[in-house]
């Protein structure tokens, strides 16, 4: 099964970071983002330090910047929100280039963008250097309830199957002159989604029956075989 190999955001390389145990990477990611979030705004030297640490980790991981950059677009809505801060925030106001801007708004916006960007970059680096299998193993090692880990492993294993099936449905719709983004064609889109749900559910039932026929009793390790 191809999905066990990597995932959409995985970058294949051989670096110390790729080889590092995934559960330690996950704990490090959690500690890093928590520290960033807990640092009060205005301590810019601390943020510069975080950025430096993150930059050296990314350099160590050998994931190229042009791989990470387009994937950072995920934070766009919040960058827009942060850019609105100086306009929407309350006083005291300062005059910059003819615009009356809120001073705490500017500071908060800058802090939002800094914290958000550090978090997104750190998460992307984790995702780029860790395969789905390793993530599942890491969660099991960190004592995440086994049923939850199992659900996630099934989801990751079949995600590609479901997404490509959905992609084929969208192509089929477009080739019949339907545009899924257009609300006027939502009834057609919804029928496709309904069919997708039925196929997912039935696939789940078949997987369960296949597991029963291989001796599944309902309790197991929660590991995804690699």
């Amino acid at each position: 099964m191809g999905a066990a190999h990597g995932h959409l955001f995985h970058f294949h390389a051989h670096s110390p970071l790729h080889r590092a145990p995934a559960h330690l990477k996950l704990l490090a990611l959690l500690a890093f983002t928590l520290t960033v979030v807990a640092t009060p705004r205005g301590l810019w030297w601390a943020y510069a330090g975080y950025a430096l640490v993150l930059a050296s980790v990314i350099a160590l991981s050998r994931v190229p910047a042009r791989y990470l950059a387009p994937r950072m677009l995920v934070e766009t809505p919040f960058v827009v929100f942060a850019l609105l801060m100086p306009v929407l925030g309350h006083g005291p106001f300062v005059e910059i280039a003819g615009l009356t801007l809120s001073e705490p708004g500017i500071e908060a916006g800058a802090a939002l963008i800094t914290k958000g960007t550090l978090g997104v970059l750190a998460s992307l680096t984790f995702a780029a250097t860790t395969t789905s299998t390793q993530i599942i193993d890491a969660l099991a090692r960190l004592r995440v309830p086994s049923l939850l880990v199992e659900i996630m492993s099934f989801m990751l294993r079949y995600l590609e199957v479901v997404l490509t099936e959905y992609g084929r449905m969208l192509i089929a719709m477009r080739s019949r002159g339907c545009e899924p983004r257009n609300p006027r064609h939502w009834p057609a889109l919804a029928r496709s989604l309904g069919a997708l749900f039925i196929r997912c559910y039935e696939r789940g039932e078949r997987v369960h029956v296949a597991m029963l026929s291989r001796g599944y009793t309902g309790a197991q390790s929660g590991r995804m075989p690699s």
Partner: protein
Amino acid sequence: MHVPDGFLDAPTSIATGAVAAVAVGVALQRARRELDDRTAPLAGLVAAFVFAAQMVNFPVGAGTSGHLMGGALAAVLVGPWTAVLCVSVVLAVQALVMADGGLTALGTNIVLIGVVTAGVGWAVFVVLRRVLPQRLSMIPISAAVAALLSVPAAAAVFTGLFAIGGQAPVDLADVLTAMLGWHVLIGIGEAAVTGLVVSAVVSTRPDLVYGARRLVAARTAALREEVAA
């Protein structure tokens, strides 16, 4: 649109993380009752479906688009507890694999997008199912109203969290107005898609729709005399 790192302060993030952990723990117990030993494969596949469904975008004006949250949809299709599990797993995968939503904000996102939308959606759905006529054709309508209300409810809870741990100097009333206004629009899109999807499933496989199970079980076979030519 998921809450990123640094949007809420650390104590609020940790507190919502604890709430999310308890909610997911309870959901793990209850989902076994909804799905028995089929829980893992079925919830996994439904989670993959929710992930795909969240890719449905709709324009909400000003050049931006909202996407389906899917909490109410999942609650009607597979039951509220399984829905909480599925959406939580989707959010965890999005945070870990795609950096969509911060890792420290994962608890916040699970509470907002998983627990609140599925919980409010299911509560509204159950009330409507009791009030409306006991017919299968009413199920999609109840689901649509449930979805419509679940989205602004999540926005209101977000505003509450923002009041406690928000990291932006904006007037709270402004935030509430903007969030509710925006999310009523998103809610209309969510309601339309949810209602249509539930209606599509009800018309082909009503037995799969958790929220319609009682109605399906109560159905009796009937012989019809005349045949339309």
